[in-house]
Structure formats: C-alpha cells, structure tokens
C-alpha cells in the first residue's frame, strides 16, 4: 500500500511552492486581473524555464518526461497561487489532446513548442450557454475547412492553436486549428475571473485538420475532459487550501466582543466543515491521480470523483471565505474575491459539478462497480 506521492514528487511540489511564493504572490494575480493583460507572460516564461509545461511530455519531444503525478503536484501549487496563466488550457487540455490523439506530425509540430512554453494551446467545445459536453456542437469540419462559432473559449485570445470540437461528415471529430488563421475572428470576452481570459472565436472556412480519428471526437473529448478534470481538481484543492489558511488566519487576528472571531463556534464549525470538504476532495484527487498515471479503467469514475469533490470544496470555501471576512471580504482590496471568481471559473469551465455527477453515476452504474 502506497497511496501517496513519493518524496521526490513532494520535493518538486515544495520547490514549486517556494518559487510561486516569491514570483506569483496573490498581488500578481490581482495585477493581471486589474490590467488589460490576458495572462502573465512573465510568469509563463519563468515556469517554462523550470520546465513545468513540459512535465508530462515525453523526452522525445525535448521535454522532461516526468508523469502526471508530478504534474498533479505542480497543479496544486498553481492553484494555491491562483496563477494568472493558461495552465489548464495549454497543459491539461491542449497538450493532453495531442498526447492522446495527435498524429506523429502533429506531435512533432506542437509538443516541443508547448513544452517550451513558446506555444499556448486551448480547447474549444461550448457554443452556447448550457452546454456541458459534446451535445450541442454544430461547428462543421468539411474537407479541411472549419466553420462555426465557439464561445467561450478559455484562453482563446492568446492561443496559438485550438483543439475544436466539431462535427464532420463521419460524425463528431476533433479539429486542430492554428491561430491566427484567415477566416478566424477572435474576440476577447469579459471573464468572471479577469485574471483568466476567454474569447469568442468565429471560424469561417478556416483551414483545419482532424485531431485523432474522424468520427471519434465525442469519445476523445470525453477522455480529454477526464484527464484535465483530475489535474484541474488538484488546482482546485490547492486554491481551497490556500483560502482556508487565509481565512483561518483572519479569524485568529480579527477580534470582536473581546475575543478572536475564530473562537466562536459558528466560525469554528464552518471552517471544520470546509476542512473536511477539502480533505474529501484531496483524497478523491489522489485516486484520480493514481488512475490517470496508470491510465486505469477506473479513470472514468475517478475523474468524476476528483472533479466533484474538488469543485465543491473550492466553491464552498470561496463563498465562506467572504462571509467569514465580513464587510472587508466584500471589498475589492481584500483577496477574497480573487478566490470567489477563480472558483466559479474553474467549477464551470470543464462542465458543471452537476454534469459530472450525472457522468459518475452513469459510469459506475454501467460497470456495476459501485462502492
């Protein structure tokens, strides 16, 4: 029994933590949020130098050749820092899509650039509010040409290429599109969390090639979302843990009625519940990481468990963070809203918690593998 990360993996995590502590304090997230910048190009470059984007990319593409467990450790720290970078889009989604389904040529073309941080990739699925998966996709891939509108595409305004969920003659098919491209119109959208950008992309006969087998787009997108969900869940757990720490500290320092507010049961019990949520989420994430690393048949269920546990832990923690800070928690100057915004962006961007709950039961009930 070894249901834990190795000492090396933990060391990597600690190194990442110190780096981000120094180079990406919450003030950095805030700076991007308050600026017109879509992301922190400086931080993106710095972590590229550390090889973070390359973590799960095989050595043959000039990368580190670590695995998903190492990536999960980094994800947790990226989450803790609310790092204003396209890590989810480029690393968990675009890179994984290429690893999962890319042709040799596609891999050779993009993986080295992704590994070095010179290219940013994104994943474009949704076309209208309400979507949580492939159903509803109408973007058409026809003879190497893509038409349709994708909205919102997280990090779409800064992406060098996009993996697009489309429909070809033979059925759902993922398409790879380079940006900028003639016929592709990218419009930046307001984001609920302006430290993470998003765009509307209109494709009008844009050159595109299939990524993975034609007709297999739905299945591939499903697998891709599962993989990204596990890694993103570590980000969420990281962010929730940080929010809990900040809130706890505040309740120790804030006095009312002659005592720290952290001595009132209403506050204590709330934080105890949030701690339980986070630990439940974290433990499910460990299972997700195990399934991801081993590409185990349990990954389908494990991804759901990680995603649901982590999304709920962070959504609740971010909400209670404001509440337990009282009035100042509602001010722009305090960091609570950074967490509140990020929480909702993350818990919706790969599909809502409810949609993952549906998936979980459908999958578990299908394999009769229940408790």
């Amino acid at each position, binding site marked *: 029994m070894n249901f834990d990360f190795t000492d090396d993996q933990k060391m990597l995590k600690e190194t990442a933590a110190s780096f981000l502590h120094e180079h990406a304090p919450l003030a950095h997230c805030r700076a991007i949020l308050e600026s017109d910048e879509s992301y922190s190009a400086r931080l993106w470059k710095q972590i590229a130098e550390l090889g973070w984007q390359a973590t799960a990319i095989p050595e043959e593409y000039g990368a580190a050749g670590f695995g998903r467990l190492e990536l999960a450790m980094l994800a947790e720290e990226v989450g803790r820092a609310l790092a204003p970078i396209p890590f989810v889009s480029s690393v968990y989604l675009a890179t994984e899509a290429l690893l999962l389904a890319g042709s040799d040529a596609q891999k050779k073309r993009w993986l080295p650039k992704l590994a070095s941080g010179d290219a940013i990739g994104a994943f474009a*699925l*949704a076309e*209208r*509010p*309400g*979507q*949580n*998966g492939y*159903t*509803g996709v109408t973007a058409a891939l026809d003879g190497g040409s893509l038409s349709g509108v994708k*909205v*919102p595409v*997280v990090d779409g305004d800064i992406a060098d290429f996009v993996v697009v969920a489309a429909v070809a003659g033979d059925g759902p098919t993922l398409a790879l599109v380079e940006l900028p491209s003639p016929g592709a119109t990218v419009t930046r*959208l*307001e*984001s*609920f*969390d302006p430290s*993470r950008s*998003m765009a*509307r992309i209109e494709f009008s006969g844009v050159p595109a090639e299939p990524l993975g087998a034609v007709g297999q787009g739905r299945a591939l997108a499903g697998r891709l979302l599962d993989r990204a969900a596990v890694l993103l869940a570590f980000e969420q757990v990281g962010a929730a843990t940080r929010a809990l720490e900040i809130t706890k500290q505040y309740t*120790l*320092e*804030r*006095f*009312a*009625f*002659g*005592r*720290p507010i952290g001595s*009132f049961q*209403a*506050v204590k019990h709330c934080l105890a519940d949030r701690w339980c949520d986070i630990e439940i989420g974290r433990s499910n994430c460990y299972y997700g990481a195990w399934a991801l690393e081993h590409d185990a048949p349990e990954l389908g269920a494990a991804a759901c468990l990680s995603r649901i546990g982590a999304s709920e832990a962070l*959504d609740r923690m971010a*909400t209670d963070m*404001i*509440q337990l800070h*009282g*009035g*100042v*928690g*509602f*001010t*722009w*100057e305090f960091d*609570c*809203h950074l967490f*509140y915004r990020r929480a*909702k*962006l*993350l818990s*919706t*961007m*790969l*599909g*809502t*918690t*409810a*949609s993952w709950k549906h998936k979980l039961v459908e999958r578990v009930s299908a394999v009769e593998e229940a408790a």
Partner: protein
Amino acid sequence: MDFNDTPEEAAFRKEVRAWLEQNTEPKNPDEATDESSDSVTEDDVKVAKAWQKKKADAGWACMRWPKEFGGRGATSIQQVIWNQEEGKRKTPSDIFGITHGMCGPTVMTHGTDEQRKQWIPGMLTGENVWCQLFSEPAAGSDLAGLRMTAVRDGDDWVVNGQKIWTTGAQIADWGILVVRSDPNVPKHKGLTYFVINMHAPGVEVRPIHQINGGRAFNEVFFTDVRIPDAHRLDDVGNGWRVALTTLMNERASIGGGGGGAAMKDLIELAKRIEIDGRRAIDDSAVKERLADFMVRARGLRYTGLRSLTALSHGKTPGPEASMGKLVGAVLGQDMAEFGVELQGMAGGAYDPTSSEDGGAWQARFLGFPGLRIAGGTDEVLRNIIAERVLGLPPEIRVDKTVPFKDIPTGA
C-alpha cells in the same frame, strides 16, 4: 383570509392612486430591477429632492410621522399602501431611506424640541439627505466596540477617527454618529451620540470599491472635526441606548432581497437553456432546485403578508425582519449561483454579448455576498433569532464589564 383591502384601506388606496396618476408615469413592468445598488449622480440627487418636496407639499411625505412633525399620523398599513402604489410608478431613486427610516425617528425620540425643529422639517421636505455613521473597521458585528473618539473642548466636541460602510455619505448633508467619549468605562457605557454636519471641515468621504465593482458604501474619515455640544443627542454616555433606537429600524428596512423578480427570470432561463438537447426545466434535478428556491421565496413573501396583516390590525410585527434578511440573502446567492451554473461551461463568462440575461446572473452572484453581510451577517441574525425569538441565552461575554481600553483586541 383574503388578499383584499378593507373598505377603509381601499378608499385610501384610491386616493393615493389618484394623486400618483396625476403626478407620475406608470413603470415599465419589463424594466430590470437594478440590484447592484450603485452610487447615484448629482442629478439623481436633485431630482430625488424635488420629488420629495412635491410629496411633502401634497402631504404624502413621511406619512406615519406625527402631524406636529409634518407627517399625517398615518397607520403603518397606509404607509405600506403608499409604498406599494408608489412602487408601480416611475419615480426617482429613493435616497431618503436612511433619512426617514432611521435618522428621523432617532431625532424625534431622543432630540430636544429645538433639535427636532432644526432638523426634522428638512428631512421631510427633502432639503437634506442624512447618513448613518456607526460601523468602524474594527467594529462591525460588534458595533459597541467602536473606537472613534470624541473629546470635549469648550462648547464643542472634537472627533477623530474613521467610520465605514456608510451608505450615501457622499451625498449626505447631515449624519448621525456614535463615538467613544470615555474609554475608561465598559464598552456600552462610554458612547455618545451626535448629529454631524457632513460639510464640516475635516470630514472626508472615500467610496469603497466593492468586489462587484459597485461603490455604494463609503469610508468616512474625521480629522479634528468640531461638533457643537448642541448637536449631541441625549446624554453623554447614553449613545448606545440611542443607537439601539436607530438599529431597531435598520434591519427591517434592509429586508428581503432574494425572491421576486429573479425567480421569474430563473424559470425563464431554465426554459431557455438546453441540457443535452432538453429544456433544463424538464430535468428533475433542475426542478428540485427551482422548487426549493420557490418555497423559500414564496415563504418570505407570505411571511411579509402575515406581517402586513398584523400591521393592518394595528399590531407590531414580530421578528420576521431578521428572518427575511437571513433567508433572503442566502436565497439570493443560491439562486444567482444556480443561474450561473445553468449556463454550463459558459458560466465563467461575464460578457453582455455572450452571457444569458446580459451577465445578470454573474452580477448577482458577485453582489449577494455583500447582502449576506450588510445590516447584520448571517451569524448575527441567527444569534438575534435564537436569543430574541427563541429566548436562548446570550453568548458568554468577556467584554461587558471591563473598561473598554482593557478589552483584548488582538492588536
């Protein structure tokens, strides 16, 4: 049990309607209610003051106030009828809520005859807008822990310190103010209550930037501001008692939030959004969430009707206001969050061009956390209900009997 007016109420409503129809336009029912409570412009203030003057001239202003103060000694239910009818008309934004709801009654109850004469008429006619200066950075839920000081100097008091969360401070002419005049006695005993001229030298108002981008509240800084002793309300050291008079009215006036208009919008949204090719509203989990919201929203509405009935029968309503605020604010946040989640992967966008209802759900989701705090946090309200409604014992207190300066502050 019926929803109709009594004959007397109906007659009064008719009279109100007639006047309003002559003096206002009907409201467009489809117009979205602005729940972001953003700051008002100077023009808004002018228009609002003129409308208040017009009402006062016609005898409709502050109707419940005694005739001697310019009111008409109306009943509570008459005031409610006025509000209902005025609510259907296009009228300027209300900037006198605190003036009439809190400041007026406090001056009437605790002021001298001279003070009443000085200030009440200007409130009634809309000449002056007032604000309430109570909360401080270190005194929120624990209001009596406030630290801003007042020191006697001849016929004046000199006040120094800071207030926060002051609605309307930037447009106010006068303010009601509680400060610590004696730090050597227990916290509730060392407070004194003043009326302060907001245009006095040394008063500086700075808007607070909220997480939802709004600036409805202010910080107010006081540097050696002089207040004539004649502007003190009630005795020195009696400030807490006066403040309670003010607070009694506050929670009632902040009220529900939540329900109403947003419920209708949410149902419409659930009809419009498709989940896997089916209308969201046909999904049983969506139904259960919507039903839960409806039960709470309607429950609050009918609780309001029960209060109205009590008013109509001349009774004082009970502690429902605390419940309305507690349940309503949480409900509003829950509904907003659900409105965001219904949008699926697009929930994290907050763009007028791509988000449902122009981003209104994301806006509400950013706004409601404030409503769960302003005017009493959830936790304070649960304490109030537990203690005042259910009669459970108060918290163990370590700060009630020691001199204020000796109370632990963590600093």
